[in-house]
């Protein structure tokens, strides 16, 4: 990350030649500022490395530096304004733009060990190579997991909740419309996809128990089963569409579902997230799946459980991916284990998938269900270990 910027007086005669009183004044200011920083002894005066960028190349063009906070003084000896960037793949790690001809600027960046490319003036100029080696400083920086490391992941998950929350509402509204039109086939097809965004955020949504009881109750848990007044939400609609083969009487249920999901959307958008919550959500969800949900299934009329499980998995994977980024510098082995557990679940789900999508859940036998449940259990166990590392 660039952290400070400083111009020092130009060295090129070209600059002196063309400039009027105004710039000389500015230069005087620059010199004064430079002198001031010198006197104050801010410790940022001398850069670790100097790079000269000429019309055709950079000198040096290959560098090896120890990991940590490094500073580079970029000297533009070409006759065009230039930028100098450190790239990790296509991503900019740090950059200094608009360095005028004859001027120099300092770029300071926190560098993790690895191989980077450096751009060098004109786009057609060959890129340079920056090798950042392991160092005590880099190790200490990586091990220091503070709140700051979680700000990006927490914000990203917040965005995910907001977007998926909005999708649950939009999909349910479409479902309600189709039901209102009495289009049974279209309503059935819509029901299957309308549920998916809800399943993606279920690890958070189920915490709002009042809503959960109205949005997603299963008949088994209700005294009067399908005849119970409390049988509402997704499964009540599923029962009508797939068991009674009719849209009749479902419109008010669908409208209530839309209303509930709107409340859910608002609550998701307002939910205060913190690192402990983010760490606990995916492990909890994986464990729920492992300990019963997969064995039993819950879409008993539509038998679309595999699509549900895949959506739950997507939701788990979203957070796991965010946490992986936090844990990777601190405990790469744990990060790799999470990756393996996720790959295992992904492979099992893929193996169960037919060409036209997931088959009816009744065709998934007990041993396949047990293997899938075990895989989610293993992921939950691995995710639990995040607590001691980054919690």
């Amino acid at each position: 990350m660039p952290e400070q910027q400083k111009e020092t007086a130009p060295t090129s005669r070209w600059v002196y030649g063309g400039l009027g009183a105004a710039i000389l004044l500015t230069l005087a200011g620059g010199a004064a500022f430079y002198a001031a920083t010198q006197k104050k002894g801010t410790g940022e005066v001398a850069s670790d490395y100097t790079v000269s960028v000429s019309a055709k190349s950079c000198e040096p063009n290959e560098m090896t530096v120890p990991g940590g906070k490094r500073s580079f003084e970029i000297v533009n000896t070409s006759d065009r304004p230039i930028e100098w960037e450190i790239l990790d793949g296509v991503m900019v790690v740090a950059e200094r733009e608009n360095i005028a001809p004859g001027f120099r600027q300092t770029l300071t960046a926190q560098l993790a060990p690895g191989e980077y490319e450096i751009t060098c003036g004109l786009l057609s100029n060959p890129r340079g190579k920056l090798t950042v080696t392991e160092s005590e400083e880099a190790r200490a920086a990586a091990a220091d997991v503070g709140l700051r490391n979680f700000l990006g992941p927490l914000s990203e998950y917040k965005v995910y909740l907001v977007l998926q929350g909005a999708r649950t509402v939009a999909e349910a509204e479409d479902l309600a419309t189709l039901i209102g039109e009495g289009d049974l086939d279209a309503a059935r097809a819509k029901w299957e996809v309308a549920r998916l965004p809800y399943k993606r955020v279920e690890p958070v949504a189920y915490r709002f128990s009042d809503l959960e009881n109205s949005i997603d109750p299963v008949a088994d848990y209700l005294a009067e089963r399908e005849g119970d007044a409390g049988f509402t939400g997704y499964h009540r609609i599923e029962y009508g569409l797939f068991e009674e083969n009719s849209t009749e009487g479902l419109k008010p249920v669908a409208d209530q579902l839309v209303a509930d999901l709107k409340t859910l959307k608002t609550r998701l958008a307002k939910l205060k997230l913190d690192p402990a919550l983010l760490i606990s959500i995916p492990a909890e969800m994986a464990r729920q799946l492992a300990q019963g949900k997969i064995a039993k299934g819950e879409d008993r009329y539509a038998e679309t459980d595999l699509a549900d499980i895949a959506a739950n998995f997507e939701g788990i994977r979203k957070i796991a991916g965010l946490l992986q980024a936090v844990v990777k510098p601190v405990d790469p082995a744990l990060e790799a284990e999470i990756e393996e557990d996720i790959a295992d679940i992904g492979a099992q789900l893929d193996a169960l998938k037919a060409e036209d999508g997931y088959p009816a859940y009744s065709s998934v036998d007990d041993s396949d269900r047990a293997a899938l449940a075990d895989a989610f259990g293993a992921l939950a166990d691995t995710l639990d270990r995040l607590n001691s590392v980054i919690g």
Partner: protein
Amino acid sequence: MSLTRILCALTFALLLGAGGAQAQSNQASLELVEPLAEYKLYVAEHTASLVEDTKEFVGAIKDGDVEKAKSLFAPTRRNYEKIEPIAELFADLDVSMDSRADDYEKGEADPNFGGFHRIEYVLWEKNTTEGLDKYADKLLADVIELDSRVSELTFPPEIVVGGAAVLMEEVAATKISGEEDRYSRTDLWDFEANFDGSRKIFELFKPLIDDEAFIAKVESNFADVYEVLADYQTEDGGFVSYEKLTDMDRRVLSAKVNTLAEELSTLRGRLGLG
């Protein structure tokens, strides 16, 4: 032009250097999560509009409708300019979409010079859409790719908060000089978009800053730059040619933009992200 540019860059750097030194050091707090998430939603909204607007822009080019293509150039770019701190994180796309002729050894004659400014060059300097099809296709592919990468990206908090000053730096260093949209003279559209993008970040994080004097200063400087722009706004919400900007107004803008860049560069420190 390069003189102006050097002056701008230098003045700016001095101000920034001084400003950075004053930045306070606070602890980053969980309160940052909400505005950071809001900002990503703002960016996603603009990359989505960028895709839609680019489709129309590319359509006009392919229809050979020079006038329509010209009229869509600045409004389409605006989406990109508002979110530049994030967009330019993707080095390959930034080069492909928004590089200038100066970045290439042979300038406009270099076939690799593509993106918005290649299209701008041909539309205005050659007054045709001929030969633009492949550049238009590539631009559309790039904006779609940008939209998808943005949706996958976990935004780095430092880049988001630092973006407010970066946008002002862009204006100060490369835009006041008029180099950016040199063929179309639609620079003022970009100015407004950069100001909007910068002000959005400031507004989002403002509630977390406990310094009323600072907030009042920044708000008043924003009001000033918008006031200058308002004089050049056309009835349809666009802007007149950059050549119409008086020297006086250019100086006012330049001064205010530099001041804003300096002030906004303290945001990271104030929010514990220094």
